[in-house]
């Protein structure tokens, strides 16, 4: 039973600096940094204190509210620093990597094991954090069983890494991971693919859906809404396609190999291309060689330009990210910028903005907000880029005035912040939609759970 997903509402943001399809081995990063903030709502309980030596796959910390959920080191090395913020909150754990990597051996996994063993294996080996859940867009609660698992094999976000390309040749690992995951749900594993050439298109133990349309066609949130929306009390899980490879390799070899192919993209990059690197590696190992000017005024983002996280030049690749985007900062004034005709920026209106004349043009956008923050005024524009069966402005307002009943009624269980990236991008009032949704989800998680 395959159900194709075809959406019309949305917007493809075409940017300069798409990564060329060639993979380079990144310089091996001396340090690996794990930031608990990548795991939303997890309060870490530190296991590996400063000075501890770790193998790849050894536990660094676990989730205080659920000790089973362990977070392991992607590299072997020594913990050299635990950075703390206010109230001794752990901001980052910095590990100095060994030259020769050694791995904690979890053993080759018997693929015929039952659900309970599979779950225990994934939890013990630190693969669990790769599995996220909706509602709330947080790491999956292992005690609840999901009604379905969703995987998107189609990336439509601007400058996203081409999943067909980065997953090439990984069919065996993908299949192992998909088969293992399929045991953990009573329902099905749904995989959305952009084309029949996708390495994921031939997976068994899963339902394959052909996806087409503008961004956010590739977002897993769109697939959930179109195939099997989350109702109150239900849970679905989502896994990034690339993380399946890590899970699959662990199952097949017993080693946690946190290697990942990452796209370096954006208009500030001289030669945008792909790198083979590790989770938590310093971005400096990738962005400067044939990439960005060292003293340039650029923004480095771990993730895509819509939902990624801003990094300092000494920052490191986020736990879930497979793109590093670099775009120019826009911290300059523009004379009469609010009224003059605009040709070099994207716009969804035609108010003396002319991007509608050049639908195929690729733009080099910077980080300027192009206007100041205002109250919600314009109506009807979000709906044009928002394919979910939800009223976007109404749910945003419900989050702002913290009406839990209304948030629930309007479909808060179904959404994640990234679903509101496009509405935030086109927002004339420059409201922080993703942040509003995140805070709304946090409130619900706290009050309803």
């Amino acid at each position, binding site marked *: 039973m395959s159900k194709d997903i075809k959406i019309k509402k949305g917007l493809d*943001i075409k940017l300069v600096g798409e990564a060329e399809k060639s993979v380079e081995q990144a310089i091996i990063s001396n340090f690996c940094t794990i930031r608990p903030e990548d795991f939303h709502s997890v309060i870490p309980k530190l296991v590996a204190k400063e000075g501890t030596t770790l193998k790849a796959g050894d536990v660094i910390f676990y989730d205080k509210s659920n000790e089973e959920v362990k977070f392991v080191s992607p590299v072997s090395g020594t913990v050299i620093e635990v950075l703390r913020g206010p109230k001794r909150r752990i901001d980052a754990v910095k590990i100095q990597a060994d030259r020769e990597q050694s791995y904690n051996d979890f053993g080759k996994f018997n693929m015929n094991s039952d659900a309970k063993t599979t779950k225990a294996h994934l939890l013990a080996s630190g693969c669990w954090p790769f599995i996220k859940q909706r509602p709330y867009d947080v790491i999956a609660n292992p005690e609840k069983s999901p009604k379905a698992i969703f995987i998107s094999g189609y990336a439509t976000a*601007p400058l996203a890494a081409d999943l067909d390309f980065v997953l090439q040749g990984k069919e065996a690992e993908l299949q192992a991971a998909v088969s293992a995951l399929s045991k953990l749900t009573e329902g099905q594993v749904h995989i959305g693919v952009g084309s029949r050439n996708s390495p994921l298109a031939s997976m068994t133990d899963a339902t394959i859906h052909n996806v087409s349309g503008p961004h956010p066609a590739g977002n897993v949130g769109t697939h959930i809404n179109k195939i099997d*929306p989350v*109702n*109150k009390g239900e849970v679905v899980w989502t896994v990034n396609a690339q993380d399946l490879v890590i899970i699959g390799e662990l199952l097949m070899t017993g080693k946690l190999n946190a290697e990942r192919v990452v796209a370096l993209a954006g208009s500030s990059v001289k030669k945008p291309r792909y790198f083979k690197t590790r989770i938590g590696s310093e971005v400096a190992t990738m962005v400067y060689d044939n990439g960005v000017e060292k003293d340039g005024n650029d*923004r480095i*983002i771990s993730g895509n*330009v*819509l*939902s*990624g996280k*801003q990094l300092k030049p000494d920052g490191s690749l986020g736990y879930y990210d497979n793109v590093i*985007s670099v*775009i120019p*900062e*826009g*911290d300059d*004034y*523009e*004379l009469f*910028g*609010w*009224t003059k005709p605009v040709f070099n*920026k*994207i*716009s*969804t*209106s*035609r*108010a*003396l903005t002319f*991007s509608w004349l050049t639908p195929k043009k690729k733009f080099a*956008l*910077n*980080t*300027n*907000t*192009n*206007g*100041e923050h*205002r*109250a*919600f*005024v314009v*109506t*009807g*524009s979000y*709906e044009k880029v928002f394919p979910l*069966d939800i*009223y976007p402005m109404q749910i945003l307002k419900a989050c702002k005035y913290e009406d839990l009943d209304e948030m629930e*009624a309007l*479909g808060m269980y179904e959404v994640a912040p990234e679903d509101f990236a496009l509405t935030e*991008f086109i*927002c*004339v*009032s*420059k409201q*922080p*939609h993703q*942040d509003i949704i995140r805070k709304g989800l946090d409130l619900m998680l706290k009050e309803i759970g």
Partner: protein
Amino acid sequence: MGLKSSLHNFKEKNKDKKWLPAFSAIHTFLFLPNETTHNGTHIKVADDLKRTMNTVIMAMVPCLIFGMFNAGYQHHLAFGDIQQATGGFFSSAFWTMDNFMVGFWKVIPLVIVSYGVGLAIEILFAMKNSHEVEEGYLVTGMLVPLIVPIDTPLWMLAVAVAFGVVIGKEVFGGTGMNILNPALTIRAFLFFAYPTWMSGDKVWVEGAVERDQMIAAGENLDAISGETILGSLAQNKEVGYEVMDMFYGLIPGSVGETSVLLILLAGLFLIFTKIGSWRIMLSSAIGALVMGLIFNGVVSSGWITESSKFYGLMSTEFWHHLLIGGFAFGTVFMATDPVTASQTNKGKWIYGFLIGFISIMIRVFNPAYPEGVMLAILLMNVFAPTIDHYVVQGNVKRRMKRLKVKTA
């Protein structure tokens, strides 16, 4: 860079001053600010609220200029200085410097007072609440001079603007929070506080009121009258204008409301730029036509005779209603105000339809004030949240049903 960096330094130096919003309001008109995104989307579209509002103002400028010419034309025509212009919209007797200057000196003060008072209040509130000055008033300030009679005294306008901005908008929290359209709140205040200045046959022609006062003082002059078409119809009088005059706008009326041709072009421009809602404009026109047809039907089936006081307006051909009075202007520029209109697409259809429908109903049944579009829009402004509520409930119910099917 001289100006750019000195303004920037000035802003940085006075960051914590109370009056900074006043400076920023001007600063941001010169330069698009240097603000950058933080986490969230790192890029943003080119449009902001200033650009959106400015597009609406651009659409209004032709109406404003036409209004100036028309004010002079109506003045000279009533005073017997010129003959009726023949040849419609492009008549050379209409587009004269003489006409323009009369209108110019009457309309520009209206614009200045409207913006001066309104923006001053906006800036005061912005400073008090320490937020930036929001752009909503840019459109309101331009709408106000276009929807009042040409001879409206400036002090009256100032009082009305102060009332409208404070009570209509700021008490709710400013742009984006108001329930009633501020421009119409101002217009409604004027209408109910100073009715003699807002209707009748004297106020629509520049100088007519003054002439009346001179006659009252005992001077031997002819009275000037310039009845609007709706005014004539309400009194079952003969209308002395051709349909094309109504379309082109060479008729008495509020400053900017008369030229349906220019309003139609402005409406198309707003739809093309995706700033105005075509749903509201279209459904409002449909609503008006339906109500007009109903009245025409009532007349043709003989329920109403010529002796009725409603006969004049009821028997007006249904599509003429789109051309006369402020209907076109209200539909294109005020019913479409996104803050006070319905916010859902389905809701917009209902909201627009009812505005058109009720406009014509009030127009016909209210003998005191023949124009209904103002009251219809204000009424529907109040109902817009209710309409949206029921539209959104449709979505909520679908979700509930899905849940029930699952658990059943």
